[in-house]
């Protein structure tokens, strides 16, 4: 089979365009966004905040799940599909109202596997306290798909006037993460690339809305921004935040929680835990006076037991827009958004 070599590099989609990194940003900027000229898209938050008439604002989000393999240590595509969209609502301060679920199955997919996925969806929805209120199912030919693809859209409601936005971030603000990073990305990578390996790494996929709602109730306006570091990892989220807030952020590497088994698995494959996806974590930016209380509240919750303060927003204008990592050995390096596809390496 002769593959037609493209004479113009860059005129076709590659896997990395879906990686959530710099290449995804490019695709959005060059092709997708220019054709969709709508205000909520400009801010590019995790969910769109709509302002219909009435007291509450609505939030709407949509995500597709194409993870391969569909099942991995710690979870599966069903759990991921529910939690991913619920978490996108939660980090903009919205409580979920309902979930829409679209399944695209490939001919030949085992019914027992579908049952497994639906069980996971049911359990995750229960955990999150949300209902799947509408859905659709399609089947495509066996060479047109990869087993199962899921799209979920979640609608949420934001009460009150609290806004979470990078514009509100100020020098002095403190950054927290609710637990160890890098688990999901590595669990999936190993399930896919090294299926014969018995790994101790498990995906952290979990619904965060209960925890976040509690924090918002207790801390109110002291929380200025939240984001879940999914594809492109904590590094990508921090690099984005520094850029959108146009401020200098300093993160302390030794304060970022990482599980030893995750760190060692990353070392084995030559990957960086900071560039590995998370599906049960969120970054929170709070006013300094509330940092201690935020940590206390996190520690009391099952999904925040290993929470930590990882850094602060600085006032150095010469480094505005840059997120620096103060390394374990006291050195400094700049955190940048990864390219978009994590590749294991041997060199």
């Amino acid at each position, binding site marked *: 089979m002769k593959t037609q070599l493209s004479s113009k590099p860059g005129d*076709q989609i590659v896997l990395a365009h879906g990686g959530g990194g710099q290449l995804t940003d490019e695709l959005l900027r060059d092709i997708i966004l220019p054709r969709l000229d709508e205000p909520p898209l400009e801010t590019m938050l995790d969910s769109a905040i709509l302002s219909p008439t009435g007291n509450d604002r609505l939030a709407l989000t949509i995500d597709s799940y194409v993870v391969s393999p569909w099942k991995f240590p710690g979870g599966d595509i069903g759990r991921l599909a529910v939690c991913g969209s619920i978490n996108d609502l939660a980090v903009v301060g919205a409580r979920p109202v309902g979930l829409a679920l679209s399944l695209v199955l490939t001919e030949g997919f085992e019914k027992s596997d579908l049952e497994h996925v639906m069980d996971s969806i049911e359990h995750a929805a229960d955990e999150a306290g949300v209902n799947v209120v509408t859905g659709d199912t399609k089947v495509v030919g066996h060479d047109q798909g990869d087993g199962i693809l899921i799209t979920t859209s979640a609608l949420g409601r934001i009460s009150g006037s609290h806004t979470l936005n990078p514009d509100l971030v100020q020098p002095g603000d403190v950054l927290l993460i609710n637990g160890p990073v890098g688990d999901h990305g590595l669990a999936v990578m190993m399930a896919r690339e090294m299926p014969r390996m018995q790994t101790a790494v498990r995906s952290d996929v979990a619904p965060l809305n209960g925890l976040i709602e509690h924090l918002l109730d207790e801390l109110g306006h002291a929380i200025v921004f939240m984001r879940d570091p999914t594809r492109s990892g904590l590094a990508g989220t921090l690099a984005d935040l520094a850029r959108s807030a146009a401020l200098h952020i300093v993160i302390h590497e030794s304060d970022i929680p990482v599980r030893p088994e995750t760190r060692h698995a990353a070392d084995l494959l030559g990957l960086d835990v900071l560039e590995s996806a998370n599906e049960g974590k969120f970054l929170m930016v709070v006013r300094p006076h509330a940092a201690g209380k935020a940590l206390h509240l996190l520690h009391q919750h099952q999904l925040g037991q290993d929470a930590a303060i990882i850094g602060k927003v600085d006032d150095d204008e010469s480094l505005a827009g840059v997120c620096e990592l103060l390394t374990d050995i006291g050195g400094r390096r700049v955190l940048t958004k990864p390219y978009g596809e994590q590749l294991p390496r*041997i060199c």
Partner: protein
Amino acid sequence: MNHRRIDLAQALEQLRQAAAALPAQLPTAVFMEVCGTHTMAAFRCGLHSLMPHNVSLLSGPGCPVCVTAQGDIDLLIELAADRPVTLCTYGDMMRVPGHHGSLEKVRGQGADVRIVYSATDAVRFATDHPDKQIVFAAIGFETTAPATAAAVKSAADLNLKNFSVLSLHKRVMPALTALLSGGSVKINGLMLPGHVAVITGWQHFAPLVDRFKIPCVVSGFEPVHMAASLATLAEMTLEQRADLVNLYPEAVTAEGNLVAQRLIDHVFQPCVVRWRGLCDIPDSGLELRPAFQSFDAMRRYALVRPADDENHACICGKVITGSAQPADCKLFANGCTPVHPLGPCMVSSEGTCAAWFKHRRNK
């Protein structure tokens, strides 16, 4: 031979003291590491930000991706795109740009390209799929060559008919010798690749000291290893003493891994190879011996190596030999970025240009 417990703070302090005492005639002590993993490890821990101002650490031709000639990359792409094969490769090679596209791009166009963690995975795939033709892209230095040799030997023992190897393996010593003989690179000391030395042994590098009178340290990859190596290089520079010191004794011995060396010798023989930026260096590559030529993908597919056609503005060759810095390249951050790389130095996350782009551009 030093075998003392290395402490990071002590090593950094020693480095600072040695640097402070360096004579005025030597405004900057220039050391070179020749291992992409060293480049990566140094930037990850922010080592450069902790080094004294008058000590500089260059990245030499130690990133196998960076030193692979473009013509060789094009061979891999041609195999994957034009021949009915499954190309198995380490992840490192996926994004390297050839003349037209990369392995990543041809995979996107339907070529069967698979990332493997180990050469044995490629052999296993061939055993499990007798209907497919598997080609393994063998890159790396002496650290990785034994794995390929073991894979070829195992394929031979299994009498596999559907497995072959495209060997792009290279040897570090001939390149270092060519680099230092060339005279264009003025360095005060070498940080030698610890994992290559695991295989070759440290004695293998002794001729560098004897012939070029240059301080050399065999270094591990933890921050403390690298700091201690820099401190030792700085001290030897100060004392005007050229010696070879092994600071990775837990893994590196004088004679190295003899089993691995014998296996390399059993399967491969040295050959001339094109190093990007260093041109052709005799005995610096490894090709399959006649006894194993049935596993040579070059023969099996009658491949002809295309001429190199590198972008003339790209100075990757000078960058990896330390004769230029990334910022000296007209294309750096100006058409050549990690997202859209033009040369291997920007593709490889270990490449000097990519590392500069990520970590040093703002300073």
